[in-house]
């Protein structure tokens, strides 16, 4: 059976399963919490099954899925790898709150794929390494570049991983009332069953399964909302009307900064943020690694297109999501009598008119001036995550769809966590253990080490997540600035400029990374900004510094040897052999 047929059947079965639960709910045969638990058990069970079926004892399967993933499915897997808990749960809410200013994320998290397509993916595929530090070591002559790459890859991936596990814990808490620590370790188990036995091969096919669930879960509620109001289930095209209404109401209410407009003087920061997210996308090792898995250079090129297409489906919908939510709050809530509050408010709100109902930490409703009517300021938002969580009920959908959203959020967090975990453990086992510590290790020993390190990294991630360190969520946003400034210049120069040498690359990686890091520390702690660019956009300085330093320092030292220059030339042409790595394939 072809992959297309298998995943077609899988999608059909999942839809059928959701319909079946909906019927049971309609008949009153199944309580809400049981629906949520059913989703949890069934989806994680499916991921585990894929993980077990994809087990492997071959290094090329474990590290790069045998380089046999077709462009289309690698695109789906990249989509799930890429879209994290933040994209799924938080982005629409961020747009609800910020409007135009938040769109920097939407453009930024998609535009990076153009850079990936033209500068990196096809060339990295031709190069044919196992990890990003691997590429750096082969191109820049030795383990010094490998170690710098290794440290940056692990630093960026580990903070990102902790944020995903935190996301799982929060989702479990909000939908199942589970204790955060228990939720985090359930999430950990969910990640391990997918990746431990089959490495990249298992993670790839699990991510495809996770993508299908997350995209169905994301689009369904807002499509129904659109259908209900405009008779067309395509919110991406109908929300123009909604935007007009929002602007009209905002003008009535005397709002000065319209939702569809940029904050005054915000242009430079918008540019910096968007640029940073783009270059960061093209510099994050867990994404770059995915393009090692396609069968050919040609497939790598089209795979970037598929990746962006599948990511696009979600991001293209996100502005509509934010707009519909804002519209609902402005029309269904504001101006209403406090005696006529809609039902979703009681399900998701914490304190409604002085009465405690939940502890989800999403919003309160008060009546500040006591006139019995809700004003905009009477809706006190604590976390804009309420947008994605409450939309199914705002749309009047049964609880089954809320359960589906939970499954989607989990899929988004788990799939990203899988990719990150594999990046960390592969860097440690391949680059540190095999390439530096014990180059004579047997295949069995190397794979055993890889699996042990995978478990260790996962447990460490879950353990750190249980401390709920607030700074970590902020650090994830900085990972883009750091990864972009540290990796992107060295990778691009390594492919496009023969003259770039070891000294230049190491100096450039360190300089780019440190520039971003210093600006982040200065901005975060002392509000010191260059040209008023906030720390989250620090990559706008780090990236050029990285390029300049590689250029200048490379020219101060002799060019790389003939063998390396031949390597750079070889990578340009799709024809010919992939660089074999000491007979492991």
């Amino acid at each position, binding site marked *: 059976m072809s992959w297309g047929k298998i995943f077609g059947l899988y999608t059909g079965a999942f839809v059928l399963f959701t319909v079946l639960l909906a019927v049971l709910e309609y008949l009153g045969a199944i309580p809400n919490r049981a629906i949520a638990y059913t989703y949890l058990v069934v989806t994680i069970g499916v991921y585990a099954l894929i993980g077990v079926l994809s087990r492997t004892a071959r290094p090329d399967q474990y590290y790069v899925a045998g380089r046999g993933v077709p462009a289309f499915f690698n695109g789906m897997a990249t989509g799930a790898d890429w879209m994290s808990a933040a994209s799924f749960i938080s982005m629409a809410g961020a747009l609800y709150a910020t409007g135009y200013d938040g769109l920097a994320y939407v453009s930024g998290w998609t535009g990076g794929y153009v850079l990936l397509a033209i500068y990196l993916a096809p060339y990295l595929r031709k190069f044919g390494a196992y990890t990003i530090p691997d590429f750096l070591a082969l191109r820049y002559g030795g383990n010094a570049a490998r170690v710098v790459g290794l440290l940056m890859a692990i630093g960026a991936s580990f903070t990102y991983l902790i944020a995903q596990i935190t996301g799982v814990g929060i989702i479990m808490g909000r939908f199942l009332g589970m204790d955060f620590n228990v939720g985090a370790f359930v999430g950990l188990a969910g990640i391990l069953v997918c990746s431990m036995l089959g490495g990249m091969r298992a993670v790839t096919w699990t991510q495809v399964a996770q993508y299908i669930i997350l995209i169905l879960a994301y689009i369904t509620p807002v499509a129904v909302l659109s259908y209900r109001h405009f008779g067309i289930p395509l919110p*991406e095209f109908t929300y123009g009307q909604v935007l007009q209404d929002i602007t009209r109401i905002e003008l009535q209410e005397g709002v000065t900064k319209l939702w569809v407009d940029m904050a005054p003087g915000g242009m430079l920061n918008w540019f910096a943020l968007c640029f940073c997210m783009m270059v960061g996308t093209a510099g994050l090792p867990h994404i770059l690694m995915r393009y090692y898995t396609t069968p050919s250079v040609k497939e790598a*090129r089209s795979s970037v297109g598929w990746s962006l297409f599948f990511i696009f489906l979600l991001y293209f919908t996100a502005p509509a999501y934010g707009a519909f939510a804002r519209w609902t709050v402005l029309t269904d809530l504001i101006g209403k009598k406090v005696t006529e509050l809609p039902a979703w408010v009681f399900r998701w709100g914490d304190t409604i008119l002085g009465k405690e109902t939940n502890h989800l930490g999403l919003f309160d409703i008060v009546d500040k001036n006591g006139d019995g009517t809700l004003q905009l300021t009477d809706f006190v938002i604590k976390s804009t995550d309420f947008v994605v969580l409450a939309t199914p009920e705002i749309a009047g959908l049964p609880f089954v769809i809320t359960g589906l959203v939970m499954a989607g959020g989990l899929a988004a967090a788990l799939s990203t966590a899988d990719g990150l975990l594999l990046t960390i453990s592969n860097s440690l086992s391949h680059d540190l253990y095999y390439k530096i510590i014990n180059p004579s290790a047997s295949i069995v020993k190397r794979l055993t080490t890889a699996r042990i390190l995978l478990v260790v990294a996962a447990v460490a991630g879950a353990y750190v997540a249980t401390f709920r360190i607030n700074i970590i969520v902020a650090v994830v946003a900085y990972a883009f600035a750091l990864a972009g400034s540290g990796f992107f210049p060295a990778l691009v120069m390594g492919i496009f400029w023969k003259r770039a040498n070891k000294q230049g690359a190491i100096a450039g990686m360190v300089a780019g990374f440190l520039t971003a890091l210093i600006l982040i520390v200065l901005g975060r702690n002392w509000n010191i900004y260059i040209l008023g660019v906030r720390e989250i956009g620090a990559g706008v300085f780090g990236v050029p510094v990285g390029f300049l330093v590689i250029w200048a320092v490379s020219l101060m030292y002799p060019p790389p040897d003939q063998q390396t220059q031949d390597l750079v030339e070889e990578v340009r042409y799709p024809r010919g052999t992939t660089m074999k790595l000491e007979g492991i394939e």
Partner: protein
Amino acid sequence: MASFRDIDRSKREGYWRETSNFTWLILVLWFVSWVGPLVLHRWLNQIVIFGFPLSFWFAGQGSLAIFIVLIVWYAIKMNKLDRKYGVAEEV
């Protein structure tokens, strides 16, 4: 082991020249597609089509669609260049 030296030198140079030029072209179009609507934001947002202020629409949806078109165009054109200069992968 096959090597790039098996490919005719003039073909290699021609291929890389066209590849570089095309890569620059895509880079410029990419830059314009998201920086353009940003810089012209005040002016473009006055234009409303089907309810969408244009700058908002580009930043949230239009630029994204252009990104996809650029990547697809790049893949198609590069496959053609591979064949034109005889550097395509043997399958």
